[in-house]
Every structure is written in C-alpha cells, then in structure tokens.
C-alpha cells in the first residue's frame, strides 16, 4: 500500500501529516517506510531520528564529445531539443551545456561519426535511515541547478510498498515531480488550509488527480482559522474529508522545534490513529 501525501503548495502541513502518520504506524508495530520525495526541500528528517544505513547517489548520462572523431557537422545540435549542444563549425568548436541536458540520448543517435559517448553526472542522492527494525526513512535530495527531480524520485520510490505501508511525502505543486510521485501511489491524501489560497491550490490538485484517475481524500490543516469554503467545496464535489487538524498554537510550537505532535500532544495521537485506520481501509 502506497499513500502519497500532497498539497498544491508547500507549508500547508504535508510534512506534519507525513511524519506523524509514519510515527503512528511505526508505534503500532507495523512495517512502514516514509519516503521524502520533496527533493528540493526535504524536511522529514528533521522530525524523525534514524541511523544512517546507506547513501545512494543517483546519476544521469551526459554526452562526451571525442573531438578527434567529431566533424562538426552539427547534427547533434539539430537533434537536441533542449539546446544543450552548441556547435560552431567555422571555428571547430563544440560544447555540451551540462545543466541543460535532459539525458534523452538523441545526440548519441544523431552522430554518425561515433564521436559521442556518455559519462555519468550526479543529480542527487537518496539517503536511507533505519528508524527501527521495521521502519525506515528515505530522503531524496536534488543537487542545485538540476533540470528535473523526476529520475531521482522514481529511483527513491522504486522499492517502496513491498510488504509494508509506504508513505510518500510528495513535492508541492502539480508539475512533473508531483505527478511522478502520485502516479506510484494507490491513494493520495491532499493537505490543505481553510483559506481562499488553500482552496485555490486544492482545486488545481484535485483537477490533476482526477485527470490521472487517482483516488484521493482531503485533510484540512489549521481548521478553524479561515472560513468554511473548503468544506463546502468538498461536500459539493463529494470529496471525502479524511481529517481536520485544528489550528492550535501548541501544534505550531511543537512543529517549530522539530517535535512530532503525536509524541508531544496526546490529543492528536487519536486523530492520526483514526486517519491511519481510514487509510488502511482504502487498501482492502
């Protein structure tokens, strides 16, 4: 069972829900893995202590030009859709702009002179932590300036969901990294806030998930702070409200110190136990 925790925008409580849900499943003695797919800003590790067990580097291919064989015909440049190759035949110059390369392999196919080979370039890392014998945390972290985190996310999720409950903390937004994460999930939990900004972002996520035909439900965080527009929208569109986490300064204070609210605040443990039960039912 793979559950993705997502939101239209960061900062709505995605990390709060992911990490506390993880803790509840773990404390119930069930095998569980939390994968932080928000590789631009991974945060889960600040809330969960584990022993570092492995670090896996993820790479992409980058073309390398053998200038002895290159005839400066320019075909690779023509085939590269991302302007990652610059050929100047007049001055016999060819250059690969590594940051622009999407690792598509078109230049390799294009070159008829066997002048192109490939090397590996690091795009990020997956750090694995063991929290206890049955549970672990994977953190994906992208290098600054890499064009896309999608290959990294795919690699991080690859062995999730085999005999354990997997929680995928998805990247915010509705672009490719978000899709790469939720596509792998059996069910998606959207976290939102009861404000016009929250509702606007929620609608975008809902639209995207409906297009992908993914089942989903909604958790409202900081309930009681804004208005009822989100609840009304959910009722109108028959979207399941999974849980409401009230606005509470104690939550903010606990969160700011990196302490899980299911550890520090008794009243919220039950809320997450219920959420877990609801999600477990989705699996069967």
């Amino acid at each position, binding site marked *: 069972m793979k559950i993705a925790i997502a939101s239209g925008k*960061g900062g709505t409580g995605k990390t709060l829900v992911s990490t506390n849900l993880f803790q509840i499943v773990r404390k119930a003695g069930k095998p569980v893995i939390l994968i932080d797919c928000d590789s631009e*800003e991974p945060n889960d590790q600040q809330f969960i202590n584990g022993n570092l067990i492995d670090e896996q580097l993820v790479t992409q291919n980058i073309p390398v030009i053998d200038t002895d064989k290159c005839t400066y015909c320019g075909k690779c440049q023509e085939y590269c859709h991302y302007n990652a190759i610059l050929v100047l035949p007049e001055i016999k110059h060819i250059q690969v702009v590594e940051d622009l390369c999407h690792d598509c*392999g078109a230049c390799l196919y294009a070159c008829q002179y066997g002048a192109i080979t490939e090397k590996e370039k690091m795009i990020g890392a997956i750090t694995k932590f063991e929290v206890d014998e049955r549970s672990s945390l994977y953190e994906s972290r992208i290098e600054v300036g890499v064009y896309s985190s999608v290959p990294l996310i795919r690699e991080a999720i690859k062995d999730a969901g085999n005999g354990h409950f997997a929680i995928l903390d998805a990247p915010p937004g*509705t672009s490719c990294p978000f899709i790469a994460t939720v596509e792998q999930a059996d069910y998606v939990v959207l976290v939102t806030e009861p404000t016009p900004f929250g509702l606007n972002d929620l609608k975008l996520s809902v639209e995207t998930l409906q297009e992908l035909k993914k089942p989903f439900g909604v958790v409202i965080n900081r309930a009681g702070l*804004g208005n009822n527009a989100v609840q009304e929208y959910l009722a109108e569109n028959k979207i399941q409200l999974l849980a409401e986490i009230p606005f509470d300064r104690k939550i903010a204070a606990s969160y700011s110190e990196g302490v899980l609210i299911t550890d520090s605040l008794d009243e919220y443990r039950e809320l997450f136990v219920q959420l877990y039960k609801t999600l477990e039912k989705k699996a069967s």
Partner: protein
Amino acid sequence: MKEIVVLSGKGGTGKSSLSAALATLASKIIVADCDVDAANLHIVLHPENYREEVYVSGQKAVIDYDKCTDCGTCMDYCRFDAIRLENGKYLISETACDGCQLCERVCPAKAINMVEHDKSRWYAGDITNGKMIHARLAPGEDNSGKLVNIVREQAREAANEIGAELILIDGPPGIGCPAISSMTGADEVVLVTEPTQSGMHDLKRIVELAGQFRIHSSVVINKYDLNTRISDELEKWCQYMKIPVIGKIPFDRSIVDAMVNCQSIIDWAPDSDISNEIKLIWNKLICHETTRSI
C-alpha cells in the same frame, strides 16, 4: 526601474500575503506573480485581465495508429519510460513524455508526431494602483522557468507603458529553476521566513542561492512570536551573514481574516499594528540607502 523579488524557499511562510500587502502600499506598481505553479495573488489583488495569451510549454509525442506497425523501436529508444506495451499496442504516457522528439526521429513508419502543449496561459490585468502579470501553468507541464521569464518580460513592458518605477515579483517556492529565473537580474531580494527548524534550514539554502547571484538580500521573519528562541537564532545568523532583518511580523489572525475576505491586510486593517509593521518594511525596501547601511 527597480525589481524587488519576494522569495521564501519553502511555502507557507506567508510570502504571498506579504507581497500583496507591499503591492497595496505602492502608489504605482507592476506586480508579477511568478509562482506560476500555484498562483494566488490574483485572489487578493483582483486584476481585471485585458490580455490572455497561450503559453506553449513544450511538445508531446502522439502515435498515429493507422501508420504504426507495432515494431517497438520507439520504446527501445525512450529514456523517460514514457512508452509501454499494453494489449499489443504501444502507448505513450502524456505525463512521462519529456518531448525530446527522439521517438519521432527513430520511428521507421513515421507514425509519431509531436503536438504542442498549449493549455498554459499568462494574463495581464489592471489593478487599482497599476498592472499585474500572472500565469497559470497547466498540470504536469514543465518549463516553469521559461514562463517565469515571460511574466517578467511582460512586467517590464507594462512598467514602461505606464511609467512605473517599481516591479514587485512574487517568486515561486523552492530553489529550482523557476526560483532562479525569478531572481536573475533583480535588484533586491526579500526573503520571508518563519521561526521553525525547517524555515531556518530553507532560509540558508535560499540565501546561498541569492549569494550566487550577488543580489542584495534582506530578511523578514513572519510569525516571529510562534517561537522566539528560533527567531533569535535566525536573527543572529542573519547578523553573522550580514543580511539585514528588515521586519518581524507577529502571528495575527487578521492576516487570515484579510485573506478570507480577499483583501490585503493593508486594505483590511489599515491602522493595525501589523499593517504599520509592514509599512516600515516597505519604507526600508524602497529607500535603498536604509537597507544598504544596516
């Protein structure tokens, strides 16, 4: 012309609410909402759009099954795992396709065509004290950096049109390509952070990024009273990094009330403490010398 960009590293720090408030304070301004993935400012600033344009974010491959001979060459070459075989038919996943065009080139039956992705839009609209450029990137589309560039270009054009001296850019979250696009060539970066461990962590990453571009930055600590210990730590760190902290905004429900009523806090509660604090921030920002000399 001066371009000020508001960034936050992570989302949820109240960046857009602050941007809206700052925008309301200017006498004449161009607002560029560069959070094209999840634009929100229009909810508060109510632009009356006079222009809507299609943004082509890229291309996607489509198979013409009348010509396809089921040879599978395309699948062999695709490095994005976008092509799969299902019930004897090759299918291209629209969301996984990167638009590299290689399958179109390798198909011996010439059965693959590239079609443009044209669901994204950008808009120009009038607001009470100027103009606003904003955009909407369709789900699953990439290249938000390019769309950010268009929004900024249009903002500069609009500024020339009405003779505005100031462009306020509401930047996207994160430290990726769109964040970089929204700050390159800007004059001033305002970093909005909050006193949490993760806020602190993200602030460091974004400061590093701003440093790489050699743009003068300053910091606003939002909701600073939610954890004064971390706020103090943040301030000390900024001092050490020689980044001026130009404002500390307490947590206040009225910010949310203003948003719920689709107004900026300045319009909603003009004489509140919080609005006064934001006015001070604004003064420090537009008067360059003050921020420089702190």
